[in-house]
């Protein structure tokens, strides 16, 4: 065995990749060869230095929360949240609620409105986030997939009881992906889907229920940012994992485009 070929074997040795026979052969060589012995020491020292440097990084809590929100929830977890960190501001999803079985938990999650007697706005926000999370699963995002606003808008005709405005914001960095049917608060809603970078934004549009929310509300549900406002007799919900500032920008652009006199 010569030293040049042994070089790689030294690495294999410290990496525990050699079988007993080869390991013995390399170790035997090392006892007789000063150069290789020195190399092996150096490799072990480097190994140790790397181990002690603690190069491993922990995913930040914000990423954990994002993932937790982006991945579909097994419903038992909603009832009994585990060690996974969530934003403190998040309001209890099913606070004050005794839900026994998984079956009823499933119902509770998908049919929040029939069971929960809670703040109407909060219920709707939860619905919106559920809709958003469902939409992120494969094949659920779009019923009509196109970046052409003049294709998306007519597609909704007869499917929902509103004619949702479909606004092209490509120039502003929000790409129109398509549209989808969904439900908010038990009523059919049109979802217009946009994307900024890798973040999906669902803009849910439904017939306005209750009081006008011209000023809009802002909340975080399960790590998602949700904006709600009313305009032109319609209820708008924008939901995304986009950061609040950018989602705010999105809402402003939509809202501005809807104002009378605007060109869109």
């Amino acid at each position, binding site marked *: 065995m010569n030293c040049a070929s042994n070089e790689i074997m030294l690495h294999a040795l410290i990496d525990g990749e050699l079988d007993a026979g080869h390991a013995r052969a390399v170790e035997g060589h090392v006892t007789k060869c000063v150069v290789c012995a020195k190399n092996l020491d150096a490799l072990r020292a480097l190994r140790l*230095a790397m181990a002690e440097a603690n190069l491993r990084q922990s995913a930040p809590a914000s*990423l954990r929360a994002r993932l937790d929100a982006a*991945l*579909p929830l*097994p419903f038992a977890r909603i009832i009994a949240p585990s060690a996974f960190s969530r934003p403190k501001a998040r309001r209890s999803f099913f606070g004050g609620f005794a839900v026994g079985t998984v079956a009823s938990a499933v119902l509770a999650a998908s049919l929040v*409105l029939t069971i929960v007697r809670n703040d109407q706005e909060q219920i709707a926000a939860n619905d919106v986030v559920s809709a958003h999370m469902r939409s992120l699963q*494969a094949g659920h995002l779009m019923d009509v997939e196109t970046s052409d606003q003049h294709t998306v808008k007519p597609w909704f005709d007869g499917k929902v009881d509103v004619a949702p405005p479909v606004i092209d914001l490509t120039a502003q960095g929000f790409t129109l992906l398509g549209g989808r049917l969904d439900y908010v*608060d038990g009523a059919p809603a049109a979802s217009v889907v946009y994307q900024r970078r890798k973040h999906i934004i669902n803009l849910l549009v439904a*017939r306005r229920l209750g009081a006008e929310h011209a000023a809009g509300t802002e909340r975080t549900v399960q790590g998602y940012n949700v904006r709600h406002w009313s305009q032109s007799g319609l209820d708008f919900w924008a939901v995304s994992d986009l950061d609040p500032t950018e989602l705010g920008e999105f809402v402003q652009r939509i809202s501005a485009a809807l104002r009378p006199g605007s060109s869109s």
Partner: protein
Amino acid sequence: MQQQTSTATWAAERDKMTGYANSENDKARRFRELALPHLDDLYTLARYLMRNAADADDAVQESYLRALRHFDSYRGPAMKPWLLTILRNVCNAEFAQRGRRETSADQSEEDEVTLPMWQEPHSAETVLLRQQDGETVRRLVAALPHQFREAIVLREINDLSYHEIAQVAGVPVGTVMSRLARARSMLRSAWNATEGTTSGTIR
């Protein structure tokens, strides 16, 4: 309220949703149980490949969503290398999309090593690890050319075997071995250059 007016539609929708939820529920739980424990591994590799926290976050999230989409067809062997393979592909796709700006400089080829070599170390003896040595080592690893950095991180931090690294990087085991050897020799030189003036050396 609104929902009473559309009870029929709603009931149909509810039944559909409940069935859907039941089948998805098990998958969601299994995926979380199997995949999420490797989050730190993915995050670490993403940080060393992407070099910027926001991009790393995006890459990790995208990898998990992609893994979930392919979870039905996942048959092993091991979850960690499978997830890391997906992450690596996500990162490479991201580089490709950016016109290879970030990798072109350091992915040229194995013989193109542009690490500063400085002078030979003087003071010698043992390896004395100072407090900031961790930071130094991190910096040196981050300074390695792309494929060597990938190999050494998969080996030393993600603790993969040669065979698994070969799988993740999509190269033969022999290539993995030579990349690791190169990576370590570059780290030694760089380390000795930074440490030569202060404490220990690895020679």
